[in-house]
């Protein structure tokens, strides 16, 4: 893809890179740097039949499920803490309890290792034995195998994950598509970008080539299919060094998500009711600036 093509509108990018039925890996953890702008745009594009693979980033997953975009979710923890206490993911829970979506529960390390295998281009990877967990009874794709080098050492074999598309919100990209996630140790984000077949990144800002300064590049340009500038693209979740989590808006969402009707209203007001993420931010207010503390 020519460099100049990498920056475009989020809507166009979703149309191109996230067709119905895609397997989507959603980056971000708890209420930290979830790709909310991309998630909302997928909802606006009324995508259907998505198969999600999630880190513990329930808010994004809950909204995609509630909006009917999802047919399957692979996950290992959905929920998070705010200053209002533990946040259960109500649309997820309701959809699973009603049998509307397939809930492929996994184990955190199994998903990470499956992504490592996907990044390496190998079809499977062994992980240490965790027999005794009933998860192995509900995951018939996980197999038990002894080590060829020690018949007493049992391993669980996990198939590689190579999701169709990665959704990531990061700090900065340059015009070639080099992406910087400004956290002290973002290497696993690179691994997920390698595992995914297409990489869609929203960023706070795009700079000229050569202007990334001393920041180490997190994802090199040749792995990136599209970069879209979306200020506050992670809001209402936080972005390290940029802005704080909006616990109040999350509380509004959580109250709405208690019922299907409430969720539908939230959807109409905050997602379909906003033409894009800028309009959403106008509506909920800019997130509080990052405070490094005393």
């Amino acid at each position: 893809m020519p460099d100049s093509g990498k920056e475009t509108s989020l809507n166009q990018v979703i149309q191109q890179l996230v067709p119905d039925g895609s397997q989507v890996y959603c980056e971000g953890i708890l209420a930290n740097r979830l790709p909310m702008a991309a998630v909302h745009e997928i909802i606006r594009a009324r995508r259907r039949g998505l198969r999600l693979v999630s880190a513990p980033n329930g808010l994004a997953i809950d909204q995609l499920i509630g909006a009917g975009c999802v047919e399957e979710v692979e996950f290992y923890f959905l929920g998070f803490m705010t200053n209002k206490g533990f946040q259960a993911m109500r649309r997820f829970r309701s959809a699973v309890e009603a049998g509307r979506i397939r809930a492929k529960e996994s184990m955190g390390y199994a998903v990470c290792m499956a992504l490592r295998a996907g990044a390496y281009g190998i079809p499977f990877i062994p992980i240490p034995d965790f027999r005794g967990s009933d998860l192995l009874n509900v995951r018939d794709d996980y197999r038990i195998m002894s080590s060829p080098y020690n018949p007493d050492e049992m391993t669980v074999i996990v198939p590689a994950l190579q999701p169709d598309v990665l959704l990531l919100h990061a700090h900065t990209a340059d015009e070639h598509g080099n992406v910087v996630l400004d956290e002290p140790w973002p290497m696993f984000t690179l691994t997920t970008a390698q595992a995914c077949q297409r990489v869609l990144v929203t960023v706070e800002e795009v700079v000229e080539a050569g202007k990334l300064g001393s920041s180490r590049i997190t994802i090199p340009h040749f792995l990136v299919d599209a970069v879209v500038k979306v200020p506050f693209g992670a809001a209402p979740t936080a972005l390290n060094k940029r802005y704080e989590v909006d616990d109040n808006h999350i509380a509004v969402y959580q109250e709405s998500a208690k019922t299907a009707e409430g969720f539908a209203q939230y959807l109409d007001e905050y997602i379909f009711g906003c033409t894009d993420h800028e309009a959403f931010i106008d509506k909920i207010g800019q997130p509080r600036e990052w405070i490094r503390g005393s």
Partner: protein
Amino acid sequence: MRYSFPELIISTLSSQLRDGERVFTGVASPVQMMATFLAKATHAPNLLYFTILGTVDPQPFRLPYSTGSPHLFDRCANAITFPEIFDLANRGRMDVAFLGGVQIDKFGSLNMSVIGNDFSRPKVRLPGGAGGPLMIRSFKRVISWRSRHSQRCLVEQLPFTTSPGWISDLKGQRHGGPDVLVTDLCVFKFSRTTKHFHLESIHPEIDLDTVKSQTGFLFRTPRRQAITREPSENELEILRRYIDPNNIRDDLLGSPKVIQ
């Protein structure tokens, strides 16, 4: 010295940690995070603390509610990625994981997945077991914390085992499970030899009958019943003044009942 119930819980969890240990707290574990900070600030200065974000020995300027808050990056010794914490544990390099369960059975197995018989259409879909199923055996020790001690939570047998405890019917398998289970009523310890929980101590102002009637499995009791150690003056001072000056602990642990 007067102290609150949340302070007792944090002090009790803290006292389970030993100097020099490598300690991990997972998702949604702010109480465990405070306990870890308290241990490091008191009896365990060489404890090495790993959060789910991968930050090592964070010193946030303000205590966050979430163990996934990016403020845990503000000041830290260094960092690592989430799967690398598992890697370390697989190589025998991690000591303590705090693991929770919505339900816990007599072997210390944890259920974080579903309530109900049909996994694909459960009565209640729980959040999921995160890294528990492997961590429960790849870490040297596991500590569990359960608020709202009741027969619904502490059960004889789990409907679904997310993270297996000290069951022993699989040959050639490493074992794992909680060594300590702290609740809002008491402290249980698990004996790896007898494969049973025993009551280690009861919290002040709680009686044995309450513990028994609220627990869904049988447990051993010692001849002389111990009372959970009260927080020391030093612990209270550090907790109130340095770790949690904004009193997040009361938000998290419900009514700040004061204990004499």
